[in-house]
Every structure is written in C-alpha cells, then in structure tokens.
C-alpha cells in the first residue's frame, strides 16, 4: 500500500508539468510554409511555437474571416484551468499521503482518477467547442469565402486530434509534453489503485 501511495503522489504531481509545458499543439504547414506555423496550447493561454507564429496565423486567417487567436484574458478557461489542475494535483497528493498512512483506502485513488477523467472530458468538450467556433464563426465580409458542395460555408475548425487538410494547410493537432505528462500521471494513479487493491486483496486472503 505504501508503494501504491507513493505512486499516487508521484502521478498527481505530474499534473504540475502543465504549468511549464503545453497541453496541446497544433501545427499548420502549407506549400508557402515549409517550416510550419504552430500554436502551443497551455492551460493559461496560447503561444506561438516560434516568436511570430500567432501573428502570422492571424495574418493569414484574416483572408478567410477567422477571429484572431484569443488572448488569455479573452477566455475564462485560461484562468480556471490552472486552478483546476493545481487543485486536482493537491487533492491527489493529499489522498496519496493519507493512503500512505492508512487513513484512506485505495478506492480513493480510483475516485480521483474518475473525477480527473470527467474533468478532462469536460475540458476536451470545451476545447472542441472553442475550435468549432474559432473555425466557423467567420466574418461575413471575409475576403475569401469557401463553401461546401451543399452551399454551406466551409468550416476551418482544426482537428481536435490528428490530421486534417484545410485548403492549402496541413493541420496536425496532438497532445504536447504537458498533456503527455498528465496522461502518464493519470495512468500512474490507476496503477496505484491496482497495486493498492492487490495488496489489500492479499492481506484479506492471508
């Protein structure tokens, strides 16, 4: 159980990587951009991969009437996400420490994982909503208007995950270091649960 608790603490602490590393990354390559433009999505805001990438993405997007990439103060998520992540990390550590001293059962580890997963899914849902609005809430006076075969305006929504071709741009959207650290951390809390359960089952059968 002690090992499980240590793993639980360590897994929860990995969430803190999100304060240093991006959660997600979207790269936009095109014939004219052999070195793709890119945005790194942090829990507290969006930054360019290279210094002027955001400015250049906005510059290109103005032709199709897309809004500029939001500043941190323009989206509530960028102030709430850090608090949620910090809170979950602290909660995980507390559960781990209590587990270490036998004050709580391993089931709390799973509880934390489920809570984190729900929050994560909500986050993803919210992120996807933003992508939809970013890609489809277009200026009606846009310079270039592209329509789908059915006549509806084309959406420039970047993919939530994976690759998509948008006009001349190849768009790739994947988790980044912070995201991977979070996934590993969450996985570790599952491992902690499994280890805790095994120890507990062993103890009962003996």
């Amino acid at each position, binding site marked *: 159980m002690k090992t499980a608790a240590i793993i639980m603490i360590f897994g929860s602490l990995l969430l803190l990587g999100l304060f240093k590393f991006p959660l997600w990354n979207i790269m936009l390559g095109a014939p004219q951009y052999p*070195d793709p433009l890119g945005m790194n999505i942090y829990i507290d805001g969006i930054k360019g991969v290279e*210094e*002027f990438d955001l*400015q*250049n993405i906005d*510059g290109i997007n103005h*032709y199709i009437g897309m809004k500029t990439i939001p500043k941190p103060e323009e989206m509530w998520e960028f102030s709430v996400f850090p608090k949620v992540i910090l809170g979950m990390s602290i909660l995980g550590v507390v559960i781990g420490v209590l587990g270490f001293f036998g004050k709580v059962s391993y089931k709390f580890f799973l509880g934390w994982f489920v809570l984190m997963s729900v929050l994560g899914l909500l986050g993803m849902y919210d992120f996807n909503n933003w992508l939809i609005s970013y890609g489809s809430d277009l200026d009606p006076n846009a*310079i270039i208007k592209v329509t789908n075969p059915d006549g509806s305006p084309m959406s420039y929504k970047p993919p939530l995950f994976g690759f998509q071709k948008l006009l001349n741009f190849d768009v790739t959207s994947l988790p980044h270091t912070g995201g991977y650290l979070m996934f590993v951390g969450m996985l570790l809390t599952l491992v902690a649960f499994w280890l805790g359960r095994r120890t507990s089952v062993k103890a009962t059968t003996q």
Partner: protein
Amino acid sequence: MKKTLKITVALVAVLAGLTSCNNSEKSKGRSGALASNVAEKVYVAPGEHDSHYAFISGGYSGNLTVYGLPSGRMFKEIPVFSQFPTNGYGYSEETKPMLETSFGFVPWDDSHHPDISQTNGKLDGRWIFINGNNTPRIARISLTTFETEEIIEVPNSAGNHSSSFITENTEYVVAGTRFSVPVPQRDMPIKDYKGNFKGALTFIAVDPEHGHMDIKFQILMPGFNYDLSHPGRGKSHGWFFFTTYNTEEASTLLEVNASQNDKDFIAAINWKKIEAYVNNGGGKMMPAEYTHNLHDEATHTATSTMKKEVRVVDPAEIPGAIYLLPTPKSPHGCDVDPSGEYIVGNGKLSANLTVHSFTKMLDAIEKKKFDGDAYGIPILRFEDVLAGSVEQPGLGPLHTEFDGKGNAYTTFFISSEVVKWKLGTWEVLDRKPTYYSVGHLTIPGGNSREPFGKYMFAMNKITKDRYLPTGPEMEHSAQLYDISGDKMELLLDFPTHGEPHYAAAIPAEIIKNNSKKIYRLAENKHPRKATIDADTKVVRDGKNVHVYMTTIRSHFSPDNIEGVKVGDKVFFHVTNLEQDFDVPHGFAMIGANNAELLISPGQTRTLTWEPKKVGVWPFYCTDFCSALHQEMQGYVRVSPADSNIELSWSLGD
C-alpha cells in the same frame, strides 16, 4: 616490300593512336560534365541546399553576387557600390548616404576582391569585405543580413586594386593603391612622376565586435604600381606582402615602359612593427578628405561622415619595417600558402613561377644581405629569398590558391588553364584548360590558414562559345573543378554576373544558420517609422510632405492621400509590418524619377517623389506578396500648387 608495308602499318597505327587519343581528350573536354558521375557531383536535388556559398565580385557591376556550390546557382546580387533599382539601394533616403564620397555621390564602381573575415586564420563568416577599385573604397557586408553595412573611402589612393585583404584575426582590412599619385594631390606635370608620386598602402582597423572600419595608418611607398597583396599566415602573421609593377616609374605607354625591368618587387611590410610605431605616436596626421558611411541596422538608416585627416607613415622614418623582394616580370597575384612560409609571386610576363621563402627572407634581413635600396627601402637579393621556381608551368601566371594538402593551384591567363603543383618540390602535377583566359581562381578558404580543399573554381574573362549567344555582350564564365583527387576534374561551367573578378567561398554551415529571416519591428528605431495603423499619418512641413505608411498583406495604410500639390516633395516612409520570413513588400509610385522600394519585414524605407502633374496618381506593391497582391494599391491626389485642399488620408472608408 614487306618491310615497307610493316612500317606503313605501324605508322598508321601510331597516327591512329595519336588521333584517337586526341579525340578522346577532346570528347572528355566537351562532354565531361555530361558524364553521369560528374553530373551527380553537381546535382543538388530540388529543395536541397548547396554545400558551399561562393561570393563572386561583380567587377564593373560594382556589386557582389552570391552563388551556391556545387550547383553554380545564383541566389542573390548584393548591391555594394552601385545603385540598385531592384530594391532601391542608393535611391532610398536611407541608403543614399552609402554612396557618398569626397567626389560627391558616386553611384557605381568596379568591385574586385572579396575576402571573408577570419579568426586565427580561419574563415569565421561574420563579414565579407570588398574593394571599390575606381573611386577607392572598401565595403563591409554583413553575413547575417547579406547587406552592405559600411563603406569607407580611401584617401591618397587611386585604383584601389591591391585590396581588400584581411589579416588573420581581421585586425586589418588592407587597401593598396594601383596608381601612384601626387600625395597630397596637386597640380604638377605628369612627366615629373618619377620620384614625386607616391603609392599609399592603407591599413584599416576593423572593430572586433561591430566590424566598424577606421583607417589606422597609410604607408606612403615609392611611386610603383601596387597590384595585389596578401597577409602573412601563421609564422608570417604580422607581415603583409604586396606585388608591384612599373618599378620603372613610367607614366606613359606602360605596356612597354613598365615591362622593361627584369624584376619588379614584392614589398614585404612588417605591419606589426608599424602598428607599434603608430601606437607610440609615430607617423603624422595629414589633411585629407574621405567619407565614412555606416548603415545602422536599428534605424535602418545610413549616415555619411566626412573625415578630415589621415595618419601617414613615411617608410624612411621606420627602418627595418619594409623590404623589397625582387620578383620577375610584373607580378600580379601575391599569395601566401597556409603555413605562411611560401610567398608566391605570379610574374605575369615570366615563364616561371617564383616562390619566396619567409624563413630565408628573415635570415637575409638578419644578416643584412642587401642589394641596394629603393628610396631608402632595402632590396634583398633574389637568390637569398628564393624558395624555388615552378619551371615553365604555363603562360601568364596570375593567381594562386592552396588546398591545404600541400598543393597549389595557379591560373594562367595566356595559356588559359589551371595548373596544380606541389609546394616544396615545385613539380607540376596536373593541368586543366579553362574557358577562356582565366583571371582569379577560388578554393573555399583557399587564401586562409585552413582551406576547405574540395572545390576550386576558375573565373574567366572571355566567354565566346560557352553558352547560347546573347549578342556582342555576354556574361563571363566560370568553371568548377573537383580537386579532392590527384587530378582536377571539370564539373560545371556556369555564367556569372558582371565581371567575376575574384571570389571568396565558405562551407555553408558556417554562415547559413546566422542568416536573418526578418528585422524585428520591435527593434526598429527609424525616426519616421509607423509600427501600428494608429501611427500612420501625413504631415506637411513647408513644401515637404511626409507620409508615414505601413504595409501588411495585402494593403497600404493609408491608401488614399489628398492635399498634395504640384511642387511638393513627398517622402513616403514605408514600414513593412510583416514579421514573417520572405514577405517583403514593394512600393512603386508612378513617374518616380528614382526607383521603387523593396522593404523587408520590419524595415522602414523612404522614397522621395516630386509630383509634377495635377491628377490622381496611383502607387502599388511590386513584390508579389500574397493572393491579393494585385489589390495592394492606392492613390495620391495632386492638386495645383495654389490650391488650398487640406491634407487628408484614409484607409477603408
């Protein structure tokens, strides 16, 4: 009868052998570059990069061109001494000061000898220097922006030919005069040349951090002609060697009168000794007028300053600093091998190539084995300083570079060939023709302490039938050879721009990652910049109208201007707001009597326009910047001189 037949058969066989041998030689020469293995050596696949940069002087174009090796593709023409309407260099208000001289605005020159900055005798790729031959000037070009940053005029000089060569830590860029002239200039009979004219050899100190140039001293040498020069390397660091011709001091029909002496000289100059002398207050300040033009990367603006005096050194004041090494027959190139031991005098009218020994020279100086003097400068004995001669290597030796493996490569103008020979044994190892009448050759780093001896290219003066004919005037040719093997192998024949007088080449990896992509807008300190739309405005100052304008894909701000009058002078200060690689914008005004502008991302440039006719006149972007480039345009309304229409400007109304 049988015997006769046999002899005949044998003769025929020998003749056939000779002919076929000739044929194969010829076909090799003709189709060499078509052979597949050769083609592969110069093929740089689409999207791939060349392994080397070559900076080839433009001669009478006054500029410097940038090529890739081994492909021979031209990447850029860098304007240096010549106005360049392509991007407005020398026309825009910011760059006009670059071409100021003590003779006024001189918008052209004859650029000859580029040389890349060095640290410890190795190419460091920070700057490249080049001389303006006609109106004596030295330019420094940044190898991060690939733009001319600085030009300094050289006073007391005329025909700035033995220039611009760099000492091994870029302490100095050296400029020698080709013509000797009265110093100071004065009204005097030309026939009194002898003994009265002087040849100024100028040592320009280079600031190690910024590269800024400042004339440290000039040595006023006897009135010979100083053709080429080269710094000592390694053991001979601290010395500089100049070839001379016309030691006869003739002032007319030089082709005959300057070719009479059996030997001219290589002047060996201990510049460290003269530097110490000058640092201790030696020499004297002499009145002189020369400009120093500096382009500031932050303000994007050049300024021209007129300097009023220069420090001159009379060789007689400092005995033991200068010696003369007799060298046969009007030597041209003066080349020092990577070890610094051998000084090659390419006696252009001599049948042999003369190589002097630095060690023997020091020894002869120590033992004071002099053979008279010229105007007080000791002359050493030819035999005492001679290291060896390459016997009968070709006709008209001009210039030698080295591969760092103990071999030297010399061009022969008259016999139109490059000859490879061995240092120390002086044996000829190989020879290959050039097409035609080769001047200089270049090996990347081939005049430094550490050559990169993979390629050599020869730059020719005559093209004739090498390319599709283009009328009487053709670009010159250059040939690229692989010198990594025992024998030189001709790889490629490519045209150059202007006169490819000489070149400097360097492995690409030394500089390519330093190449700037944009100028940072946040660091733009141009006094008339506009970095956001709110900064754009039009301001009248008497007859002068200043337009603070911005460009970004795909519009000008403002794009409509009214209130300009005939007789005004309109200054368009255009700032390119882009911060994206390779997105310059152009600015072109109808009827502009100067040029267009090409404005790099983050840069501000100013075009002056003097409207002469009433009307509504358009301007537009000349650089195809975006899908809506064609829409990037605007109007200036020009009213009669006496109208009272107020200035106004707009965008998107």
